[in-house]
């Protein structure tokens, strides 16, 4: 059962990603990105990482993408000003290199050989919560500081000079 | 040394090194608008420094080869680095040369240096600290510090107060010496750790290093590093191109000190560090060094002959004279080395005087090109007399200082390197050629250039700083014993030390092995 769902959601994710990268207009890219995020969340669920799936949907798809769409509308680049993008020179090389990277990660993936763990619900909220507030407490606090810094930074940068 | 109070004699050398530094600090407080006061103050400082160095020379006991007036204070005990200074027969006269020439150089700048007089004087005093320090340091680390310290003031002296291409020359001078000394630093560190490996004691004390026996292969590379660093400084043949540029673009006082003392740090380095520490490699590489020295002698003389600029001519003549010194040092016998040391002093005196002479007419005519002059002898006869005496001393006429040094060098070198001496002796002819040709074009003949017709003759101040040099030229020429006597013990001790260490080191090597086999494990 799981492999089928994996293939479905995997395909959606990959397709969405490709569409994000190739669309001319940022708004359509943003929407495709949201689709991809949902597909990834589904994959999390498949891997019993329910907590993560929820976070993904709420934080990522919800908050971050909203921010994105908000900014896209804010910037509202007129149709003609959007950069003409013909894939030439260095950027073509870049795509080729990315292809290479995919190939290499494929080879790496096949070399993955780690013993399977025992506990099934490693991804559940209880397990993640316990780990988060015991071993990784410090990391957790630091991320809060990080977010604070990001917020202040964003405001300072985007604020119109009065 | 009995009559010098005990307190003074133990701290004399430290006073000698750091007194100019105190003088430099004092200059900071003097008003910049009053250059005359600054010049006189600096002159006073350098004169007191000279007076301070007199007891060292007079009190020096020529009988023993040991270091005298030694002062030893632990500096960085953790690494076995000490502030260890002392003087012996080899370094005594070089220190005296420095303290003797400084007042003369300062006196020569009274009309030559007009802008930034305060900074100029401070750099000169710092330079003196470095120079005196180099000759007195017995601790390798301390030696290296003073060796580098000297570069900075000289760089500024050339870079700021020089003439046309001063920046290029200053940088070239700095990089040349600096590249060399980096190699030396590597060798010092290698020596330091080898000493620890051999004796289990961390120290940079030179005298302890003398006792160290170093495996032959390591000796080769270390000697190469030290030799290269000193060869840049001497300068020996292929590494000499910085010297003419540095001299042409340095102010008169700068090039006097550069020629008279800085170059001697190279040859002194060979004698104090490279040869005694690595005797096997030194003697094995003697043919190479002697060849470069002889090439330097002939090449320097030939190129000097065709120079158009007087200072460049004198610079190339220094390459030739120092080729002689190197040949003398690498004769590995008492005559050669004593001749070498004496020639270092002679070169300091006569080339220093030559640069002052070129400086005198440069101050009057603001040009150094030989064809600008001609027939000066009629206009400035006293100047002509002084110039003639210095030319003769530089050519090495018996009765002047040049001859005694050159004769001893060639005598010593003849014993160990017969054919090298024959070629080197042609340098005696060539030096006569280029010096007399230059003298003739500048002083004799008709007055070609109207501007030369009314040149003022030597001023009392100029006579004041030329006179001591002339006295030295004749003193060393007629009665060199005062100088040679004080060197004897140290030089013979150095020669015997090199020889015994070499025999010891070669003791266990197979007999008659070729150099390649000894150093590069190539099967004989």
């Amino acid at each position, binding site marked *: 059962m799981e492999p089928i769902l994996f293939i479905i959601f995997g395909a959606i994710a990959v397709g969405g990603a490709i569409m*994000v990268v190739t669309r001319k207009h940022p708004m359509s890219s943003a929407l495709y990105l949201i689709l991809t995020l949902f597909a990834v969340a589904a994959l999390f669920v498949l891997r019993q990482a329910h907590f993560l799936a929820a976070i993904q949907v709420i934080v990522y798809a919800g908050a971050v993408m909203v*921010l994105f769409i908000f900014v896209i509308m804010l910037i509202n680049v007129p149709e003609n000003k959007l950069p003409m993008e013909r894939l030439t020179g260095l950027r073509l090389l870049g*795509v080729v290199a990315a292809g290479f990277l995919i190939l290499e*990660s494929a080879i790496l993936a096949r070399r993955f050989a780690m013993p399977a*763990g025992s506990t099934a619900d490693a991804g559940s909220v209880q397990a993640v919560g316990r780990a988060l507030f015991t*071993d990784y407490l410090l990391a957790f606090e630091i991320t809060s500081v990080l977010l604070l810094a990001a917020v202040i930074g*964003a405001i300072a940068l985007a604020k119109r000079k009065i | 040394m009995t009559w010098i109070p005990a307190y003074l004699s133990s701290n004399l050398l430290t006073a000698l090194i750091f007194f100019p530094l105190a003088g430099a600090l004092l200059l900071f407080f003097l008003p910049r608008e009053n250059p005359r006061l600054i010049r006189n103050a600096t002159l006073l400082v350098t004169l007191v420094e000279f007076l301070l160095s007199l007891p060292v020379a007079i009190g020096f006991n020529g009988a023993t080869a040991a270091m005298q007036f030694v002062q030893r204070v632990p500096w960085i005990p953790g690494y076995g680095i000490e502030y260890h200074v002392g003087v012996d027969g080899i370094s005594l006269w070089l220190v005296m040369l420095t303290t003797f020439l400084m007042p003369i150089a300062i006196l020569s700048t009274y009309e030559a240096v007009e802008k930034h007089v305060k900074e100029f004087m401070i750099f000169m005093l710092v330079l003196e600290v470095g120079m005196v320090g180099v000759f007195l340091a017995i601790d390798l680390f301390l030696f290296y510090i003073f060796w580098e310290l000297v570069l900075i003031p000289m760089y500024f002296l050339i870079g700021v107060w020089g003439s046309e291409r001063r920046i290029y020359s200053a940088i070239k001078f700095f990089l040349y010496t600096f590249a060399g000394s980096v190699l030396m630093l590597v060798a010092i560190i290698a020596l330091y750790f080898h000493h620890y490996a051999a004796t289990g004691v961390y120290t940079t004390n030179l005298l302890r290093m003398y006792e160290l026996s170093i495996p032959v292969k390591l000796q080769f590379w270390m000697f190469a590093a030290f030799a290269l660093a000193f060869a840049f400084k001497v300068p020996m043949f292929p590494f000499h191109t910085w010297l003419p540029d540095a001299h042409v673009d340095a102010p008169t006082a700068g090039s006097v000190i550069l020629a008279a003392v800085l170059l001697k740090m190279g040859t002194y380095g060979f004698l104090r560090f490279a040869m005694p520490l690595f005797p096997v490699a030194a003697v094995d590489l003697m043919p190479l060094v002697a060849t470069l020295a002889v090439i330097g002698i002939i090449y320097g003389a030939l190129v000097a002959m065709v120079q158009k600029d007087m200072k460049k001519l004198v610079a190339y003549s220094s390459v030739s004279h120092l080729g002689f010194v190197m040949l003398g040092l690498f004769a590995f016998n008492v005559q050669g080395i004593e001749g070498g040391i004496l020639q270092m002093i002679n070169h300091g005196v006569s080339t220093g005087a030559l640069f002052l002479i070129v400086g005198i007419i440069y101050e009057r005519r603001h040009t150094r090109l030989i064809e600008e002059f001609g027939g000066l002898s009629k206009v400035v006869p006293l100047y002509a007399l002084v110039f003639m005496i210095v030319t003769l001393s530089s050519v090495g006429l018996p009765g002047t200082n040049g001859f005694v040094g050159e004769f001893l060098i060639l005598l010593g070198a003849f014993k160990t390197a017969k054919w090298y001496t024959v070629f080197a002796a042609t340098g005696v002819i060539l030096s006569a050629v280029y010096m007399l040709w230059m003298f003739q074009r500048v002083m004799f003949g008709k007055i070609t250039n109207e501007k030369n017709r009314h040149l003022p003759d030597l001023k009392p101040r100029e006579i004041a700083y030329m006179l001591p040099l002339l006295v030295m030229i004749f003193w060393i020429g007629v009665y060199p014993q005062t100088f040679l006597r004080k060197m004897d013990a140290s030089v013979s001790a150095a020669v015997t030390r090199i020889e015994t260490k070499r025999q010891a080191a070669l003791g266990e090597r197979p007999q008659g092995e070729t150099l390649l086999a000894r150093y590069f494990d190539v099967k004989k």
Partner: protein
Amino acid sequence: MMEPTAYLLLSGILFGIGVAGVVARKNALIILMSVEIMLNAVNVAFIAVGSHLGDPTGSIFAFMVMTVAAAEAAVGLAILIAIYRLKETIDITELSVLKW
């Protein structure tokens, strides 16, 4: 539970696409989105391996990645707005003031 290799492969593909997007596109917004894709690819890998090993650390890391991603997006977009206000463009090839 499935072997994680498939997930890793997927993560590689997604990552490749994201990288291609960053490199190939001139529109700064699209680049930022591609970065988001790359981060998600990483999360997939984390979760896949984490669940395979039964170790919550995978999720923790994914969680950290997300917070960082959020912060990064916020600051990135703020910069973009400031640039757009200043230069009227979001084409990175025109924003090459730091040229040699």
